[in-house]
């Protein structure tokens, strides 16, 4: 997909380095992937995260090596399998939360016992 880019208004007197690239189309790679070497894409199988806007067959952009925060959607290793869950870090403990009432949340005794492969920061969902 190529989108024509419109140059932004630039205060007079300060040549913007962006002007050098006025004629380039928006590069999705550049805007969606902030850490290219550590970013991976994965396909979602299952519907336990529909409440978070993540459906079966969607694609997730996953960044490795970034510290997961409370509320992040993470790819965690559970029983030797990559699993998508929402990470909850609360005073009462660590929880891997599904975003679908049909699926149970999974309590984690210690954060150190949990292998988080990466943080899913964007979901690509096809509309047709």
């Amino acid at each position, binding site marked *: 997909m190529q989108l024509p880019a419109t140059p932004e208004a630039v205060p007079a007197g300060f040549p913007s380095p962006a002007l050098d690239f006025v004629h380039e189309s928006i590069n999705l790679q550049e805007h969606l992937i902030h*850490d*290219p*070497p*550590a970013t*991976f*894409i*994965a*396909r*979602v*199988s*299952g*519907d*336990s*995260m529909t409440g978070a806007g*993540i459906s*079966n067959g969607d*694609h*997730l952009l*996953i960044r*490795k*090596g970034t510290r997961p925060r409370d509320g992040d959607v993470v*790819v965690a*290793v559970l029983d*030797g*399998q*990559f*699993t*998508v869950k929402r990470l909850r870090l609360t005073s009462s403990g660590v929880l891997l939360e*599904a975003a679908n009432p049909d*699926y149970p949340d999974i309590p984690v005794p210690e954060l150190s016992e949990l*292998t988080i*492969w990466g943080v*899913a920061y964007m979901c690509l969902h096809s509309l047709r």
Partner: protein
Amino acid sequence: MTQHLVALVDVNSFYASCERAFDPTLAGKPVVVLSNNDGCAVAMSPEAKQLGITVGAPWFKLAPAAGQMGLLARSSNYELYGDMSHRFLQIIGEHSAQVEKYSIDEAFASISSSPGQASTWAQGLRQEIAERLGLPVGIGLGQTKTLAKLANLAAKKLAEMNGVCVWEGLAGDYREQVLARLPVQQIWGIGSRTANKLAAMGIDTAGQLRDADPPMIRRRLGVPVMRSLLELRGQSCIELEDAREFHDSLVFSRSFSSPVTTCEVMEQVLTSYAQRACTRLNTRASEARTLTAWAMTSWHSSKAFESPSVTLSLPAPSNDPVVLSRAAKALLPKITAGTRYTKAGITLTDLSPAGVQPTLDVLSDPQQEHSLGPLLHQVRNKVGTDSIGLGRGGLRMPAEWEMRREMMSPRYTTRWEEMLTVHAT
């Protein structure tokens, strides 16, 4: 004291580690990666090494006991390794003003710092590569490439080093002990033949080589060995060779005398480098099935560093300069006109002995088939009916599309249809 130091960063058990990075079921298990046609082990996880498995071990011998040993095997997945190698290099580039790709899983980087700071820098880089790529690395630092290699060896051997060793940071008498014990052939660039000649002169250890007389070594063994000697003394004098050969891969790379800024010139460069890589391939009677073409801008430039890279699988193993040149040109769409590239290279992996694969790959180009009939006929008349054939009739080995890669993992990062699956269940 701030000094110029060279770091040698390498990924431990690279192929096996790449497999592990995408497959949690392999964690902590002995893993072997097999050569093409699932013939023999080309890489082992540390656990597999502990089982006594070495490079070259034939899979048919390992397979019967694999279940009992808990040994897991994967066919080699060179597209994945090529892509991970590129990511590895990019991360090192974020932390160093100068990076030289040495092989698929090793790079030299240079920094200016004190030995103490260098150790902190290296631990940070090591942790970052582990977190961002899931790959374990070892880092050796020294005043020269040879000492960096030596330190890297020490970092691997000594668990208490935690994967990082700064040669200049070690106590002087400890360094002497290491040099006195280290066999001379363990020094970077000293092959077994040179080691034998050195042994005949009474030089068996790294320490003895360092203390030998440089002019005498140059006279009797040539300039490269003298350079190794000087590097052991801390004098930097080894430049990377343009062509570098490893047991399972081959690299041809070179810096440009002046930056390349157009696709036209880059095309010439890639063609030329692919042909030179081919010459090396032919010298060792090998063919390659995977090619990585890459270019990079200068680390010193004020502009953002760029290192486009492309890895592709050929339809069949090849040592044909035309085929490899054409493949190398796949990099061109990633080249930005106007960007000042200072270096480019070709990496060939998935090597196999030449001639065991079909040379008549007629199925890959159906249009050629028509002209082949009369040609086949002529050849048969001249040298006999079994000399040439179409399809399986002409093959001494199973065709590539029948080659066994039964245990190959998905090409997670280079094929859309093979990307990682994550479970929302």
